[in-house]
């Protein structure tokens, strides 16, 4: 196995172009497990740890966070919990403190496991993945990024440089199910983000389909419900029946399987509960914030 250590981003792209089968490694929290368990024996590893900019983030003019691919979860929780509350909640549930010190969103996206905790908040936020190769840079909308189980839209010569995440303009939530109270892989997970300026609600489902995915019917339902009842304007209480229906539609959007972590039926049930609860939390937060502003 070759171990390639580019010093700059340009070098990294050149290396990846020369070795399209090389596996990028940053925190190593996924890749090293696969190597140690003998599940993967790539010809080459591209170590991205020398590339400083991948560990950095900045706020763009449009208030979007440009998050370097290697920024560890611990840093997201610490520095970005206000701007990216959904992603921070997801980050908080990733592995152990040691894993959160090393693991990053770039790794979650590169691995594209349906169980990755970053995916649902990225879907709910409407993030964009910045992929690059010697051929140039592409901005891939998150909705188009996940193609199948552990498959994403990257070309073999591409690397993830950053992910662009709009700063939250409304409350966001993330919740997941695991059969212990910490350090657990998702049985299923759900994220919801309110976007009051566009009167939009976006969602993300994790670990309950071959890919992370949005619950579009649920989003359309709740958007219409909020519009028609004038709740965005009135700031009134969300009817429980609406929240319940939203939950059912989220469960309906999932395509879970039975596996050692949980049954398909339980995943659907749990998603309905999580979606109902998190929607109510976000809406109640939104109302509270509105009142505070008024």
């Amino acid at each position, binding site marked *: 196995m070759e171990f390639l250590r580019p010093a700059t981003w340009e070098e990294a792209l050149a290396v990846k172009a020369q070795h399209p089968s090389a596996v990028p490694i940053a925190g190593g929290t996924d890749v090293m497990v696969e190597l*140690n*368990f*003998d599940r993967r024996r790539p010809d080459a590893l591209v170590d991205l740890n020398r590339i400083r900019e991948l560990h950095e983030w900045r706020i763009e003019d449009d208030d979007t966070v440009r998050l370097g691919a290697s920024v560890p979860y611990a840093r997201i929780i610490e520095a970005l919990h206000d701007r990216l509350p959904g992603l921070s*909640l997801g980050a*908080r*549930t990733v592995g152990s403190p040691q894993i959160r010190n090393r693991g990053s969103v770039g790794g979650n996206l590169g691995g594209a496991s349906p169980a990755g905790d970053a995916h649902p908040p990225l879907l709910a936020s409407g993030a964009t993945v910045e992929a690059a190769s010697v051929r140039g840079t592409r901005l891939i909308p998150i909705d188009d990024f996940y193609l199948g189980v552990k498959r994403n839209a990257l070309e073999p010569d591409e690397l993830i440089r950053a992910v662009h995440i709009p700063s939250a303009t409304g409350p966001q*939530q*993330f*919740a*997941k*199910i*695991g*059969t*212990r*109270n*910490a*350090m*657990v*892989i998702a*049985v299923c997970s759900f994220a919801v983000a309110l976007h009051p300026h566009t009167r939009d609600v976006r969602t993300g489902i994790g670990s309950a389909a071959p890919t992370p995915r949005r619950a579009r019917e649920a989003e359309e339902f709740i958007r219409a419900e909020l519009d028609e009842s004038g709740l965005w304007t009135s700031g009134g209480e969300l009817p429980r029946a609406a929240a319940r229906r939203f939950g059912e539609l989220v469960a309906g959007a999932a395509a879970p399987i039975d596996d*050692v*972590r*949980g*049954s398909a*039926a*339980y995943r659907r*049930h*749990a998603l309905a*509960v*999580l979606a109902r*609860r998190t929607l109510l*939390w976000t809406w109640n937060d939104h109302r509270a914030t509105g009142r505070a502003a008024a």
Partner: protein
Amino acid sequence: MAGPTTPRNLSAVSAPGRDGIGASPPRPDGILKVKGDFAYASDLWHEDMLWGTTLRSPHARARIRSVDVSAALALPGVYAVLTHEDIPGSKFYGLEIADQPVLAIDEVRFHGEPIAIVAADHPETARRAVARIVVDYDVSPAIGPVEALDPERYGHVHAPADYKAHASGNIVHSQHVHHGDGDSAEVRARADVIVRGEYEVGMQDQAFLGPESGLAVPAEDGGIDLYIATQWLHVDRQQMCPVLALPPEKVRLTLAGVGGAFGGREDISMQVHACLLAQYTGKPVKIVYNREESFFGHVHRHPATMVFEHGATRDGRLVFVRAEIVLDGGAYASSSPAVVGNAASLGIGPYVIPNASIDATAVYTNNPPCGAMRGFGAVQMCFGYESQMDRLAAELGMDPVKLRRLNAMEQGSVLPTGQVVDAPAPVAELLRRVEAMPLPAAAYRRTGDGVDLRELPGGVSNSTHGEGVVRGIGYGVGIKNVGFSEGFDDYSTARVRLEVINGAPVALVHTAMAEVGQGGVTVHAQIVRTELGVDLVTIAPADTRVGSAGSTSASRQTYMTGGAVKSAAEAVRGTVLARGRRRHGWTPDLVAGLRLVDGKVVDRADAVVADLVDLLGDEPVDETVEFRHRPTQAFDRLTGQGFGHVQYTFCAHRAVVDVDVELGLVKVVELAAAQDVGKAMNPLAVLGQIHGGSTQGLGLAVMEEIVVAEGRVRNPSFTDYLIPTILDTPPMPVDVLELADPHAPYGLRGAGEAPTLSATPAIVAAIRAATGLALNRVPVRPEHLTGI
């Protein structure tokens, strides 16, 4: 970074004049382990050593048509590829029945069974070589515990011609216990209420953190030196010698750093494989399992199905119990017979019941072999009988603790085996104490505008902010035997040497006791300080140059090897005082009252009569003693009667849980325990044992299970085999009783296992209280709680 180190300055942990029995000196390995500096067996290294790797079966049951190792042997860097054909001696081993092939012979009987072993100059090379071995399998459907009971239809795990256990068919061992009038029609008629329940316990794993590892070094005399993480050096050797065709004196074992055991190291794993490779190549060979292989490399806790019937009078007096237990022993016997003996003899719990009929059976299946794990047959039963006590209390409309206390055994009670309990058995008192402890604060705390997620079911997964959360409280109490039972010649050897070094008296303790984290080395030093009045005690490495210390299991080491160290120290003291008698003409009466304190010989009035350094001079005193507990008897095969157990130990738990009833997630809020330990030799270590055992019981209650489907292990990783994290581990107040057992050294009682028993049923009872569900299976899964 500095490499791993072994504990140094073992004697330096003691402060002068302190740290005898009843004190809590720190353990010598504690800080090293916390800092990551402790040298485990996986850290062993030898110049020119090779790495051993194992080819394991991907199938649970298959004939092996052929094994082709040529491609593996052709790989540069490979020194040996061995199959059963290369074994110089016996091809089988086993703790109680030698039925397990060292390497598979023409067939495999469980997923993960070793078929071939490779030695190469690099672990990666060894792994690649294993991948090049071609095995042609003829796969058959696996025999599970249900199929096992019908061999005519589903076949035999061990062909009748190869069968080695005492029973027949697919039965490894069975034991009936008949007490009073059993469950006869007449007895049943005496019961006003009868409750029946069927219960199931899943396959728990010991999940020790240090995987199996060791280093075998060929010696010039044609023998082998093995450095190994194990629970019992001498029984490893006893099983290996016939395989290696070497006499015991040529197979020398030294204990390497052990990263937990809990029963999982009682059977041999890679020991004999490493020795075979070292013997064949003439080079040192190291084998280290990774986490996944570790799940295949050791036995697990027996899964159990249990049917109980409890009959009682309207006022809550137990009239009879009928129990039928089937334990899944997996493909090989391991310690199944002894587990069956425990299940049968301890199957009604710590209660006085005039009539009982109990049948316990272990079956051979094509599931992973099961054997010793903390609680050893008593854990499964405790979940069954305690669930029944709650069911009976509900049926009678009676408080469950009151029902338990009403029927609790005490000193003088007769067990279903006919054995009279001849030491304190404070079962009712333990229940009273645990019930009287203050309850934790009501529900989760709302903090300002939010909640502390860590206090809620689901924890930081953020699945509830209080919605659906219901609190429940439950109780459990159990009975566990201490030491090896049923007539086994259970003994421990200890050597104690006392000499003057640099002008101070120094004691050396040498035993073969495996320190697996239980704290035995700390207690040995405490015993010697108390008995010989010295401050400086050195613990020699455990090895086979001294006699057997028996296994570090069955809660027996403080009793047994502690007892041996005490006896050896007494022998040393006797020799020292005899020297004084000869030298100073002390009268027998004076000698009878002499003690060794702070390096002096003192009389009854605490007057110093001699200095220990002077008495010793330059002649060390060195005594080796074998210590035995009082003998036990085998249980009668037909009636289960007999003085089968040495000592009993009891623990009671109260669990408080919060359950998210909509999502089926559980947070154990508090797990309070009360336990009688006879004498707390090291109170801090006792607390550690009770906390650890309780937590392992918690794991079984709500998360720990090896999932096996058609013989295949589906979750051999810590990603999917979940053990409690610190966030799952609640505050655990402990009330320790010290009622001396007159038969035991210092009156002590083995402490390590009892808490593992009652934690599980207490937690499940609390979940039942919160949900109103029957919950007949552990671990309880979210699916069970949501009915989905």
